[in-house]
């Protein structure tokens, strides 16, 4: 593996009630987050292909971890998202190199499908920076019940020469979703949008 991983953290969250009303079955989401060395920290490097390869590796590893943390088959995942936070000696473009060119293919391989764009966010920050991973339905981006976000935070990362890379997967939408729009049973799943 090209990625030099310092730690991997998984987060699992289940919501059982909201405003006193039962959420049954509970909504569940998981994030798997890797803290890696940024091989390009501290200097301007034109070619970012090394980070793209790392993105490909982490796409597979973190999606497998997130799905395992939920205890579901990849094909049972409903929504997903990805994010990266670059330490202070790196560029925002380093996050882009990890997230965008190659990370998505292995994510979709683990989940069986994934016609929709994987929503993403990125930022630069210090240790403990809060990362809000956007979430959207994996087969149809317009499914309104699944627009969501999951917050993750690792108190000791990213250090200056590190990057935090996160993938979130759910088996459900928001608790008590009721603002209309396209529902998951209306998905055609052809264009990734509806």
């Amino acid at each position, binding site marked *: 593996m090209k990625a030099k991983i310092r730690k991997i953290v*998984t987060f699992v969250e289940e919501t059982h009630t909201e405003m006193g009303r039962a959420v049954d079955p509970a909504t569940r989401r998981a994030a798997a987050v890797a803290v890696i060395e940024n091989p390009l920290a501290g200097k301007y490097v034109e070619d970012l292909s090394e980070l793209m390869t790392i993105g490909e590796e982490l796409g597979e590893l973190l999606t497998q971890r997130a799905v395992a943390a939920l205890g579901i088959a990849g094909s049972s995942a409903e929504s997903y998202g990805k994010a990266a936070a670059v330490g202070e000696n790196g560029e925002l473009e380093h996050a882009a190199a990890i997230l965008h060119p190659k990370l998505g293919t292995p994510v979709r391989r683990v989940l069986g499908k994934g016609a929709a764009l994987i929503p993403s966010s990125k930022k630069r920050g210090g240790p403990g920076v809060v990362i809000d991973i956007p979430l959207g339905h994996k087969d149809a981006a317009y499914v309104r019940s699944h627009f969501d976000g999951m917050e993750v935070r690792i108190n000791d990362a990213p250090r200056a020469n590190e990057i935090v890379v996160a993938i979130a997967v759910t088996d459900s939408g928001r608790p008590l979703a009721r603002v209309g729009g396209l529902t998951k049973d209306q998905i055609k799943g052809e264009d990734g949008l509806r």
Partner: protein
Amino acid sequence: MHEVQVRKKLIFVEEIFHEGGPRASTPLRRAAAMAVIHNPFAGRYVEKIEGFMDDLKPLGLEMAKSLVAALGGDPKVVEGYGKGAIVGSAGELEHGALWHVPGGYAMREVLGGAKAIVASTKKVGGPGTRLDVPITHINASYVRSHFDAMEVGVSDAPRADEIVLALVMTTGARVHARVGGLKASEIKGEDGLR
């Protein structure tokens, strides 16, 4: 007797490979289980609250078991533990103290009679408050390599009338522990201290 109303359950698992030094042959794992519960005493002064400790015992056991499961299912791998509570702003610090008995009892029960006092901390705070849960060796509080802490928190909890309860377990020493003191191999295991 108060019903324990759980809004959310969360599990965080950290797998730490190194911290700038030699890569650990067995990575250190730390896991935290959290439950966001309704505070039955929020908003007023209630003199008699002790009974809620018994009410919390089943939840404590469930959380302790889920931690062992998150660490692979074998309680024998657990070497460190700690507990904590974050009380929402309509509650008292004393409500957090209700977690001492059921939280500690649950972990000892699941770990088969751990001898050391369970390190703990608590505070009053708003949603997103972070708590550094202290960690010590399960059989001898003075084992220096196992003094540690794990940061926990939930972005949307505790609301004013909620309490976040936390249990933490670890599988070993700090990843590059090297400041001497009592070693795990030197534990007498009689008094819970050495």
